[in-house]
């Protein structure tokens, strides 16, 4: 850490009137006495927060899902809270900045501890765009195995809703989910393929009833964007025969790769690729790990 960045670090006490009310809640145990932060303190940031957390290892599917979800959350006025760890966390921060949203990163180590290059760069950007870097650990406290779960309680504490993007079997994100349960906060998990090891944790959360599956409908209610789907429905009749055929095929036979569609239909691979992209732009189909499916 260079000296100039050290200057920017400040602290805020529990007694301060600007200290987030949400963190003063009784449900946040052990209590948070003091926070160190970088950036300009802005109480408004804490008004409506969504935590987006997940595994360090992210699949293409996870990346794609975040690409859809985060802009919507930002658009609905949520501040996106995450942990600045590589993988899902960093992707969430990046996307937030890209779509002009506000970001808060809660660290699992001291506010001045040495960060990895990528994390440091991202932290700088978050601060630049009016976001905050928070930590309950002073100066250069180094990360310990227990500091990350403790950090998760703050992430959950300041958030109104928690989204678990991708989590493996033993992911730390499951810990976040359990904090959320203790604090009675709604948890959403992005469901994934039964074959995918990176979705094992999220699927487990849904299966155990610990989290709601984040479907398109859920996302729309969350972001009060309920007319998106209805607009599409009207145009089904106007669609070309072949596009309709493709959608029907995908609906009936489930997600398929382009190669498979080509084998099962009379269309050439080139034509299918073209049509699918047009359908994707219109919001009828989505691609996940090379598999196309009807929405």
């Amino acid at each position, binding site marked *: 850490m260079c000296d100039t960045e050290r200057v920017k670090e400040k602290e805020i006490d529990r007694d301060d009137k600007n200290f987030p009310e949400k963190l003063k809640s009784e449900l946040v145990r052990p209590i948070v006495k003091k926070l160190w932060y970088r950036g300009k303190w802005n109480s408004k940031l804490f008004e409506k927060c969504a935590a987006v957390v997940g595994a360090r*290892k992210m699949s293409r599917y996870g990346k794609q899902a975040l690409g859809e979800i985060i802009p919507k959350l930002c658009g609905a006025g949520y501040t996106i809270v995450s942990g600045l760890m590589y993988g899902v966390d960093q992707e969430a921060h990046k996307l937030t900045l890209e779509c002009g949203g506000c970001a808060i990163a809660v660290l699992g180590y001291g506010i001045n501890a040495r960060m990895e290059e990528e994390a440091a760069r991202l932290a700088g950007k978050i601060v630049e765009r009016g976001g905050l870097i928070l930590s309950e650990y002073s100066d250069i406290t180094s990360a310990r195995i227990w500091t990350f779960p403790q950090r998760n309680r703050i992430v959950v504490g300041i958030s109104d809703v928690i989204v678990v993007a991708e989590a493996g079997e033993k992911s730390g994100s499951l810990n976040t989910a359990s904090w959320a349960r203790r604090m009675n906060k709604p948890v959403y998990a992005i469901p994934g393929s039964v074959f995918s090891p990176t979705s094992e944790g999220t699927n487990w959360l849904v299966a155990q009833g610990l989290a709601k599956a984040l479907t398109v409908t859920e996302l729309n209610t969350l972001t009060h964007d309920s007319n998106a789907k209805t607009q599409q429905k009207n145009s089904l009749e106007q669609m070309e025969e072949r596009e309709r055929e493709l959608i029907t095929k995908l609906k009936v036979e489930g997600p398929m790769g382009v*190669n498979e569609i080509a084998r099962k239909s009379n269309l050439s691979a080139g034509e299918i690729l*073209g049509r699918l992209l047009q359908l994707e*732009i219109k919001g009828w189909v989505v691609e996940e790990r090379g598999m196309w499916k009807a929405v």
Partner: protein
Amino acid sequence: MATVGLEAVEVTVEVDVAERGFPAFDIVGLGDKAVSESRARVKKAIENSGASFPDKRITVNLAPADLPKEGSNYDLPIAIGILLANREIEGEIEGYVYGELGLDGSVKRCRGTLLVGMLAREKKLSAVYVPIETAAEAAVIPGIIVYPVRNLTELIEHIREEKKIEPMKTIEILSLLDDAEPQVDIGEVVGQEVAKRAAEIAAAGGHNLLLVGPPGAGKTMLAKAFPSILPPLLPEESLEVTRIYSVAGMLPSGTALMRRRPFRSPHHTTSMVGLIGGGSNPMPGEISLAHLGVLFLDELPEFSRSVLEVLRQPMEDQTVSITRAMGKVQYPASFLLLASANPCPCGYLNHPFKECTCGERVINKYRARISGPILDRIDLHVWVDPVEVNKLTSTDERREKLDERGENSTQVRERVISARGKQQMRFTGIRGMYTNAQMGNKQVKIFCKLSEEVKQFLNTAANKYNLSARAYFKVIKVARTIADLEGMEEILVNHIAEAVQYRENVW
């Protein structure tokens, strides 16, 4: 004749046999070791051919004297020069003499025989005397007489007009180009419809293609089938390619011409010089050997980064300049880059059934081995899915149906050829431009007019998928080729949409 890069320069061999002075044999004119050793070969060859080597002071000058000369091809002219100067043989010889001598007087093969023929035509000389093994190279040049020389005795008898050497028949270029040899047929690649389609577009428009996928998906197989869908070489293209191979000494003996587009697949340990050419006596590298053909870089990220970076300039300029202490040479390097890569070091990232064991940072490091500028120069990025085993060994009935549907190379190639024809028409009058891939932004604006509807669609897509300005133009170029394949003048929405699918999102 000496070569400077791919250019041939006429060299005159002057021989003086002096009556006075100690017997000696000197060669001047900046020859290399091979040239100076030629003294021993010439002497023995003459003696073993039944003629006598003069016991006099012999001076040989290779003019122009300031041009460095290398190689053994001066043996034959020096020997003939000495015999003529010593009046051992009486007679006239007109034309270029070219070839290396063995101690028994046999004439051995030499690099660059094609260039001798080309130079003779240029200088309006009637005949060339070249080694019998490589004579076929020169025989494709119309308008000159090619004498294939087997040994020194034959040539001596020819000059004495005792026994003439039978001139070689001129070889018709077109007749050679027709007989394509059997290759891997694209119909043999099972499944992979998307990758095959991308290969077709690449072949038609000269677009560079990157295939990314797990091991065993069939990337290499597809690459091997790729030459079978390329259009045949045009006669002048064939000469251009042969010239490079002739200079590199890589034409198989007895071959007159390169008949097919070259397909080069250098191993990933190839050095920078091996790839772009060079050396103290500069020689063409892999990219020049792939001129007008395909450079296949299997396992692209395994190449060292500095080696890959040197590809940038040749990919842009389609030619490579090499400067060495000896001088500067320029080799053509207009190739189609076909590259394959695994998505991560273990190879199973995004694999439908297998788990990838690579850490995030390892993957990032792996990805960084291919730089942005290189990726930027690749128009088509395609994800190749692993073939499921049940597709390979599916029941006979299904397999038959598949075979019926799957096209073979001849069918695909026909479309490619007609699409190339369209491009040729489009770019008549623009020098050095043959394919859509070569278009700059200026040409894209002229030749790829988009209707309002199409433009609007492209803009929507560009926003949704975050296309950069460069990616935007790439999409249009690829869409142009797709339209050409369909024989359409106008670029339609579906063409653009398909082109967007090949954007840079697999790496």
